[in-house]
């Protein structure tokens, strides 16, 4: 292994590779910041370009776009409450309140630094523990994935602790909406309400754009504010954020990075699930969980750290087993196969220089992300000095083209508008759009794994409970889910107890 380190580092110093990292990162950040354009789309669009390059350079550029796009999503999440990619849904919970409080620069810098940190932790795991972690990920079958999703869904209990019933109703509405389309078990049209295009189902990204972006446009236009948010640049903001992160967020950063890496390894579970689980865990373990959602740096840090750590995690099964951990990893796998490289553990021996150059390039990309991100932040905060009316109108246009571009379907434009109106009404009657988004994201995975368990129980002995609770990983996840559901009650009891003794 060590014999590949020096050639890999030399490869990395090639001016072309450095240029590709910078260009990939910049392009990725811009793609990520535009609502509707995802990391998968950015990487997929650039795959044909890499055919003209050698494999190492092509892979370096794709990796840079991937990392840049996942981070880029946080910019629009903080500035206009619109997650640029589904991975940054949880970033809006605290990033947007920070922006509204005039601390947009702090929110953006925190998301940048924690993204870079999370990315590096994920890559460190990829470098050091690829083989054992890949073997662990393979143990996740239908029941384990089902419980993992339910664990993610239990976030609602913590997220909506003010009115858990409304949170649960919102989550259920989201899950119900996710059942629209083709029934994955019987392949029959389901809940299309006589409108044939609905057979395509409700795509997650347009629904997110509607719930968070279009509904936010309605809210902003309906407010009497002249600008999106007041922006008070803080002198020395970078130093302050670094000190805050290094001082009080150490545990949050490490825990979220670990969660991101582990979730990233699991096929189908992407950055959005990792970020939501990490946010939930940070809130749960905090001494004062009510602070979350009010605009605190820890909230932004946990979400951003986790979603960028997913990158390293997703590359572990891709490089070692040839199983992609995310949609982007699947596209990159396709690019590797097109170049005649068969992923598997041999990739670290037969083509070790390629594998290690790519891994080291991910470290470099995460370091380069800081100066490039800082430069782009300066441009992006200027958005806050444009009159709100113009920004809101422009967001509608970007939402429309962003949603259409996912599958070139006019249906997605309608999904944005309908979910925007639903999101706006829900905000007025205090139903939780965040919980609804969780239901829409996790619903298809829960249903798929639920179906797998039902089929498995029919094949074994007819006992579905046995299938659900057969493995130790499933039992651990059940325990964690129950713990997560009980957390608000335990915290309320502790709070009442503390108030009584004051």
């Amino acid at each position: 292994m060590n014999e590949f380190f020096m050639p890999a580092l030399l490869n990395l110093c090639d001016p072309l590779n450095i240029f590709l990292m910078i260009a990939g990162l910049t392009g990725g950040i811009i793609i990520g910041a535009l609502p509707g354009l995802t990391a998968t789309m950015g990487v997929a669009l650039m795959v044909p370009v890499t055919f003209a390059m050698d494999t190492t350079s092509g892979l370096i550029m794709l990796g840079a776009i991937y990392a840049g796009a996942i981070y880029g999503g946080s910019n629009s999440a903080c500035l206009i409450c619109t997650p640029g990619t589904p991975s940054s849904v949880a970033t809006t919970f605290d990033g947007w309140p920070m922006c509204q409080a005039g601390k947009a620069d702090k929110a953006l810098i925190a998301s940048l630094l924690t993204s870079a940190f999370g990315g590096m932790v994920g890559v460190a795991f990829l470098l050091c523990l690829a083989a054992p972690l890949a073997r662990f990920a393979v143990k996740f079958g239908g029941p384990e994935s089902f419980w993992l999703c339910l664990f993610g869904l239990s976030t609602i209990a913590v997220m909506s602790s003010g009115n858990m019933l409304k949170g649960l109703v919102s989550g259920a509405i989201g899950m119900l909406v996710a059942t629209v389309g083709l029934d994955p078990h019987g392949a029959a049209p389901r809940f299309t309400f006589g409108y044939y295009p609905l057979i395509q189902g409700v795509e997650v990204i347009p629904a997110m754009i509607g719930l968070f972006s279009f509904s936010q446009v309605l809210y902003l236009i309906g407010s009497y504010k002249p600008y999106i948010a007041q922006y008070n640049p803080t002198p020395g903001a970078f130093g302050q954020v670094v000190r805050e992160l290094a001082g009080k967020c150490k545990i949050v950063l490490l825990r979220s990075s670990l969660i991101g890496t582990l979730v990233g390894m699991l096929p189908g579970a992407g950055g959005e699930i990792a970020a939501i689980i990490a946010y939930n865990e940070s809130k749960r373990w905090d001494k004062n969980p009510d602070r979350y959602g009010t605009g605190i740096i820890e909230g932004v840090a946990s979400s951003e750290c986790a979603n960028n750590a997913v990158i390293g995690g997703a590359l572990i099964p891709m490089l070692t087993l040839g199983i992609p951990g995310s949609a982007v990893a699947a596209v990159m796998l396709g690019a590797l196969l097109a170049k005649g490289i068969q992923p598997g553990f041999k990739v670290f021996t037969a083509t070790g220089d390629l594998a290690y150059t790519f891994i080291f390039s991910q470290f470099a990309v995460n370091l380069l992300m800081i100066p490039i991100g800082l430069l782009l932040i300066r441009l992006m905060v200027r958005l806050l000095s444009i009159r709100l009316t113009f920004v809101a109108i422009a967001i509608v246009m970007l939402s429309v083209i962003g949603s259409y571009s996912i599958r070139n379907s006019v249906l997605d434009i309608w999904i944005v508008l309908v979910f925007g109106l639903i999101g706006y009404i829900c905000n007025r009657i205090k139903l939780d759009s965040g919980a609804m988004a969780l239901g829409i994201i996790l619903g298809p995975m829960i249903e798929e794994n639920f179906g797998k368990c039902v089929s498995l129980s029919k094949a074994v002995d007819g006992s579905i409970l046995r299938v659900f609770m057969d493995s130790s990983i499933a039992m651990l996840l059940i325990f964690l889910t129950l713990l997560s559901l009980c957390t608000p009650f335990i915290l309320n009891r502790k709070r009442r107890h503390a108030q009584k003794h004051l």
Partner: protein
Amino acid sequence: MRKSTSDLVAAVFALALSGLFFLNTGDLEGTGLNYPLLILAFMVLCVLALIFSGLRARQRAEDGEARIDAEPVAVKRVLIISAASLLYAIFIPILGFYAASALFLFGAAMVLNESKVRRLKAACLLTAIMCLAVWAAFAKLLGVPTPEGLFY
């Protein structure tokens, strides 16, 4: 809006939605039917609890109950942008993306911009910048297709 009222409105909204989905279960069978039915059953239970909590809150503090939403809303502006967006979505497949976008951007900027100074200039500028930026980024740079219609 009072908390109890918002609870009851939310419950009615969720109940209506579950009723709509329940009535459309049609010919579904197996897991494809059981899974949404499980969600519907769970939702109905939550809705009943929400109604109970709303009614109890209303009985307990009829007069003293705090309002949970005191922020004023410019309803007219919300209705204008909603209607303009719906018209925009209708006209995209008819006129084409860029023509419909230009109309939407210009119209919405003219109507919603409350500043009387250089309103026409600002609307033209916004329309030109956005159309050019989206065309350059989506159509030229990324090669993403845009909806086509009568015009470009």
